[in-house]
């Protein structure tokens, strides 16, 4: 089966800084794939390039679906403060109005737990509520490839659990590329993952294979991987 996303040799340079360095990645249909790495690893840059918000320096990106079925939820979504929840979700439905009927708006709002705030203006929303609204705005388009950039970063433990349940519920239907700092979330939700540091891929494969090959806990293993890479990079930079 053709992968839903196939990336080969993707590089992004900001001046002399290489944010992405010959990155390769393939995603299978219906998978929930984690994207793990510290700040500056290149996760957000990768997601931005995938939806066309940034331009790649070189490399190839191929989609196994129509590009209008690919969407991104940024880490701190923000909306027009003078619109209500229902209006924001309906606006998000507008480009897809041929295949998504207006009745879906309330269904999606209920799905993310914002039904009581459906007619409230979003200007007064907390970050957590905006995050939920952000999820509603991407789910309404019924994407086939959903890119989530740290979707739980602003949520309390209950909200986080709900979002993770929502993401888990998408398994098999929608392919999710899920970027996060929270390693536990990756282990509990994702089937596979890519560990990144300094724009390079350190590990790409299934979570089970990763766990089987290591004696430490999942979190400790990833931290060890990142620490070794950072030390190697430092050695390379210093020219030893």
């Amino acid at each position, binding site marked *: 089966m053709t992968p839903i996303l196939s990336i080969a040799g993707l590089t992004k340079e900001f001046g002399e800084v290489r944010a992405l360095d010959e990155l390769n990645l393939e995603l299978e249909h219906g998978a929930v794939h984690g994207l793990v790495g510290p700040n500056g690893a290149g996760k957000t840059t990768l997601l*931005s390039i995938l*939806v066309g*918000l*940034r*331009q790649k320096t070189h490399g190839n990106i191929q989609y196994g679906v129509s590009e209008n079925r690919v*969407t*991104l939820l*940024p880490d*701190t*979504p*923000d*909306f*027009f403060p*003078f*619109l209500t929840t229902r*209006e924001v979700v*309906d*606006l*998000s*439905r*507008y*480009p897809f109005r041929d295949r998504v009927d207006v009745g879906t708006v309330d269904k999606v709002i209920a799905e993310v737990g914002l039904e009581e705030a459906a007619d409230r*203006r979003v200007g007064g929303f907390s970050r957590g509520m905006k995050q939920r609204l952000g999820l509603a*705005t991407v789910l309404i*388009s019924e994407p086939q490839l959903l890119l989530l950039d740290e979707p739980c970063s602003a949520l309390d433990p209950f909200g986080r659990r709900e979002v993770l349940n929502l993401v888990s519920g998408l398994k098999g239907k929608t392919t999710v590329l899920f970027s996060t700092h929270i390693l536990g979330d990756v282990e509990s939700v994702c089937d596979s993952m890519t560990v990144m540091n300094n724009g390079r891929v350190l590990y790409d494969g299934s979570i089970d294979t990763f766990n089987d090959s290591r004696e430490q806990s999942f979190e400790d293993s990833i931290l060890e991987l990142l620490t070794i890479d950072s030390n190697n990079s430092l050695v390379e930079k210093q020219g030893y």
Partner: protein
Amino acid sequence: MNLWRVELLHLLRTWRGWTLSGVFLLASLLATLIGFLIQRSSTSSFTYDQTLDLYTAFAWLPILLWTGIAASSFAIDSNRERSVFLRLRFSLAEILISKSIFYFVLVGVLWLTGFAITFFLGLLIFDGSHQISLGWFLWGLFFFLITGIFSTALILFCGALFRGAVASVLVVIGLNLGLPIIASLLIFLELLIRGLADTPPVEWDAVSYVARTFLWWPVATYDAVIFMSVTPAEIAADTSLTLGQAIELEAAFRIKPLMSSVIALPAMALLSWRWYAKREV
């Protein structure tokens, strides 16, 4: 919900819409009030077409406010998250075309409503025995629409040039407000140096090289809006009396800025499109 409705709600649910309507209405009422005060304090009669000239002059302030509001709206990438929301759902063409048409129509409707209010108030209060010439009215209206199109394009251009809303707003207002001030100062300085300091402003275009150069600035088309209130008496005299100044009734008046508008518009639109499209969010 679509982008047109978003623009409308942006005006109606925030201070912008009401303030803008209020300031246009204020310009209209102020023109009428000043006309009324002039009529009371002088022996000569004050005619309704003169209030229209006053409105044309006072409407600069609401136009500047409109410029600021429109420029901040065109700064679509000043808030990254909202920009991501828009750009991922709508094409750049949909976003920019809806904004351009919306703000052009907005200034047109508000300005003309203010003009109509001034017209009817003037007819009620002042001497309304003259009829304004329809032909000259349409010619003036044409220049008004050209000014509106160019101003919208200038706002679009600055929105493409600067990512931030503040920079874009300041530059657009600076160009609209600052350029005429700088031009006036330079003209005065030139006339002073040439020993022609007592030349009346109405003759500046004919005498001053600086004035002739600045006449190519597209926004100068707004001067021709005075044609919207030309009376048969003015046609007979071949002169339009506007705010105490006699201007020759000449269809080619402000033809230079009209030409530069026509040349600049497609270039500005193309450059704006290119810069908006190339900008990384």
